[in-house]
């Protein structure tokens, strides 16, 4: 992992005054963040804080009301979603979105083929090249045994992993993951944390996450959103110590570095995160 806050020439991702309102409701208000290369940036905040809207603005799912998005120093605010993705952004959905009727291999192959072929539809991705890359990626997330399963038949946790695999397959410059560990079992979360650390050597990661132990262990820096605004930003330790964050989001118990700061806002993640992550996921268990 890179040292937190290390200065970089051009940030990979930069937003300036990014705002979005839906029919008069302000979902995101003047959010400016700057993420340098190889950083793992976590984005946290209570439900409804505007995290998913914010990432949606970055990848182009929504048009901002105001503000701009820069990627590698280039203003991409006017680009369509698929054009942004092609510049090297990968995105995993908060609500699992895979090709349910296609098998796992084809799901990943679709990501690989697009990344290989790029803008040119006429160019063919070589089948062997695609197959190799798919195998590589599936191996990396641990889904190789399920390559022939229909994505819709996978367990929920495995669908999350498949989403991550589809992102990995694109070898992105910026990897945006919207609650990737939701619904994962404890050992899968361990694997995910290791993967993120490994990835941070080669890519920049924006991680929206509810599972606090995961955030604390993965992130170089954390940005906290609340009711659409950027409330605080800093290293995990700074965020832990930040009083505004404590009262706004983390609530009662922040002092310990254990998993008990997992806020009770995510019923899906809690069963996995709270009891299981405790003994073996604490910082003490780290190498």
């Amino acid at each position, binding site marked *: 992992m890179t040292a937190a806050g290390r200065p970089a020439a051009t940030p990979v991702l930069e937003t300036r005054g990014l705002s979005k309102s839906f029919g008069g409701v302000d979902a995101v208000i003047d959010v400016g963040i700057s993420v340098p290369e190889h950083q793992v940036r976590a984005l946290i905040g209570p439900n409804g804080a505007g995290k998913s809207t914010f990432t949606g603005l970055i990848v182009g799912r929504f048009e901002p009301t105001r503000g701009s998005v820069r990627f590698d120093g280039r203003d991409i605010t006017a680009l369509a979603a*698929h054009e942004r993705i092609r510049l090297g952004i990968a995105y995993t959905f908060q609500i699992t979105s895979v*090709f349910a009727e296609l098998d796992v291999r084809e799901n990943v192959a679709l990501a690989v083929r697009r990344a290989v072929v790029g803008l040119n539809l006429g160019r063919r991705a070589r089948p062997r090249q695609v197959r190799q890359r798919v195998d590589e990626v599936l191996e990396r997330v641990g889904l190789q045994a399920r390559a022939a399963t229909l994505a819709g038949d996978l367990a929920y946790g495995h669908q999350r992993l498949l989403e991550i695999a589809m992102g990995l397959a694109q070898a992105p410059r910026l990897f945006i993951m919207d609650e990737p560990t939701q619904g994962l079992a404890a050992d899968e979360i361990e694997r995910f944390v290791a993967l993120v650390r490994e990835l941070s050597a080669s890519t920049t990661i924006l991680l929206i996450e509810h599972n606090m132990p995961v955030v604390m262990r993965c992130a170089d820096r954390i940005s906290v959103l609340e009711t659409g605004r950027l409330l605080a930003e800093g290293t995990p330790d700074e965020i832990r110590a930040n009083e505004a964050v404590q009262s706004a989001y983390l609530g009662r118990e922040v002092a310990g570095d254990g998993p008990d700061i997992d806020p009770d806002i995510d019923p899906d993640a809690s069963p996995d995160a709270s009891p299981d992550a405790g003994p073996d996921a604490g910082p003490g268990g780290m190498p």
Partner: protein
Amino acid sequence: MNDARGWLLHLGLLAALVLAWFVLPAYHTGNLARILVLAVYAAGFNVVFGYTGLLSLGHALFFAAGLYGLGLSIQHVGLGVLPAFGVALGVSALIAAMTGYLALRTRGVAFMIVTLMFAQTGYLTVLYAGRWTRGDEGFVIARSARTLFGLDLADERIRYFAALVLFAIVFLSLAAIVSSGFGRALVAIRENEERARLLGYDVQRIKWLAVILSGTVSGAAGAAYALLFGYAGATFASVQYSILPLLWVLLGGAGTTIGPLIGTVFMFYLVDFASEITDAYLLLVGLALICLTLFLPRGIAGELRRRALPWLP
């Protein structure tokens, strides 16, 4: 196709169709020539409906564009068969490009209605231009004008093999296309458009290309129909001819390469058989269709793929 079995099936089917000429009685080979041309139409429709997941109710526009593109340029311009066929392909591709561009701004039910309206406009245009098209009554293309490389296309045998050649070209090309990266992208859009978009696929452009491909193949079928059977009439531009390919593809198996042919054969003989039994043959046809949709919702080839042959392209 990345699977040898796929190619074997396709080539085997074509071989069987060659053989059919020598084995089947004249009545059936006559039917089969017609069915092959209509199956090309169904295959064209299948690109948009079966693979891309867009329900168009206006494909008669493209079929008629090919039909009249060829018919009028032979009848009134005096073009030869090949240039007329070229005109037909060009016109249907152009119309598909224009209507597709506009219709694809909508989705779902709106897309169905917009395509239906475009096709109705085409139908009314055919009637309006009655001086040349002779409207509902239509016109017959003289046998003397229907020769290609010195071959009389009105001859039963030549007609059968001409239809088969066209079918084979379309059948094999589409099989290759749907298993290419482009074809897989169509399926991705059908299965989950937003995910495809956020994998970086230019969904709008790919859909547009699919409509153009589909419209051109449908136009080729229309042109071949006019050429081989020597007649062009407004019925072929009517809404009925937009619904028929939908039925054929649904019955045969949407999103399969062999489905369109199976569906067209099935439907043709279902009508043929039912009308031998009773004048109210549509009643029997309707019943059979209801049973099929109840018990084989994915169509014949679709169920085959699901139950026995997962490699079916």
